[in-house]
C-alpha cells in the first residue's frame, strides 16, 4: 500500500499532522501553529477519543474556525491531520485511511 505521510503532506492545504500511540505523541506542525505547543491538550483529546466505546466510525472530523482536524483512529493509534478548509477533504480522508492502515499493519 502506497499511503505515506509524504503523500499526505503533498495534498494542498494540509498543514501538518499529529500521531499518538499510548503515551507517545509526535507533532509535526509549523512552529507558529497554535497546536504546536499544545501537547497536553491534544493528549486529552486522544484519551477522550480512545475512551469512547460507542464511537460509530473510525474517522472523526472537527471543524474549527478556519481549519479542520481530521482524525483517524485504529486500535490505540491516532493520526490527526490539520488542514485548511480548501484542502480536498475526500483525498485527505482516503490518504489518511491508507496511512493509518499501514501504521497498524507495521
Amino acid at each position, binding site marked *: *500500500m*502506497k*499511503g505515506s505521510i509524504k*503523500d499526505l503532506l*503533498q*495534498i*494542498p492545504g494540509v498543514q501538518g499532522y499529529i500521531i499518538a500511540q499510548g503515551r507517545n505523541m509526535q507533532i509535526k506542525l509549523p512552529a507558529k501553529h497554535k497546536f504546536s505547543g499544545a501537547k497536553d491538550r491534544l493528549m486529552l483529546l486522544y484519551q477522550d477519543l480512545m475512551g469512547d466505546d460507542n464511537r460509530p466510525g473510525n474517522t472523526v472530523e472537527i471543524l474549527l474556525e478556519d481549519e479542520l482536524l481530521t482524525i483517524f483512529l485504529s486500535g490505540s493509534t491516532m493520526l490527526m491531520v490539520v488542514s485548511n478548509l480548501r484542502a*480536498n*477533504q*475526500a*483525498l485527505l*480522508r*482516503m*490518504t489518511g*485511511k*491508507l496511512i493509518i*492502515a499501514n501504521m497498524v499493519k507495521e
Partner: protein
Amino acid sequence: MKQDISGDLVNTRCPEIMKILSLGKRTGRLYLTNGADTGNIYFSEGEVIHAQCGSLSGIKAVLEIAVWSSGDYHFFVDEPADMQTIIMGIEEVLAETTNHLRQMDKITSLIPSSSAIYSLEPDIREKDIQLKSIQWRIVTTVDGKKSIADIAQSLNIGVSDVMKVLYTLIRMGLLRDATQQDTHPEHLSVDLPETDFMNSLKQALTQAIGPIAPYVIVETADDLKADLLADSTDQKAFLIETLSSKIPNERMSLKFLDAMTDWLKAEV
C-alpha cells in the same frame, strides 16, 4: 343447413347457451369459433351427446370450449351427431363446466392467456422435486419461445389442461414469465463514459466487488448527483471515497483506495 341461434361469445358464454338449448330441448349442432379454433357441441333433445374441439372430443372438448370468452356461435337445427362421446346428463355437464370455469378463473389470475410464454426458472430453490408424468411432459417443452397454445398443440392436449399444469409448475417455482427475463439485472447493460479515470475506476472496483462494479458506480453517482464526465477533482475524490465505503471487505476497500489515490494525486 338451418341456423336459428347465433351471436358472439363476448356477451353470452358457452355454458349459458348450453342452458338455453337444454331448456328448449333442442336437437342440432352448436358451432363455436375462437380465433382460429373451432368447436362443435351436439345436442339431442336438450342433452349434450357429443363434442369435438381440435383433437379433443367428449366432455374434455366441452370444457375446452366453455372457457372461450371471444368469438362467435351458431346453432344449426337438425344436424344430429354421428357418434356419442358424452353419456352424462346435461345437469352433470353444466356442473362440471361451472366447476372448470371456477378453476380457470383462478388460473387466469396468474396466467393471463394462452399466448403467454414461460421459461424454466434458472434459480430453483427446492431441491427435491417430484413431477407427475403430464407435468414432466409439459415442463420439457417449455423453452421460453413456445406459447401455451403452441405447447398444447405440440402435445395434443387441451389449452386449459396445459394452463392448469403450468399454474402448478409456476406455483412450485419451476417456471417464470419469459418476458420478464429481460428486466433481470444481469441482462441490463450500463454504459459508463469511456474516460481514463472511469476505466481505472471500473477496473479497480471490479477487482474489489466483481462484475456488479459498473452498476454500483452508476447508482452511487446518481445518489451523489455526480456527473461522471465532470473534471472536478473534488467530485472524483468524493465518488471514490463513497465507493470505497461500499466495499464490504476492508482489505479490498483499502486496496481500491490505494489504486485510486494515485489518480487523484496526479491531478491535485
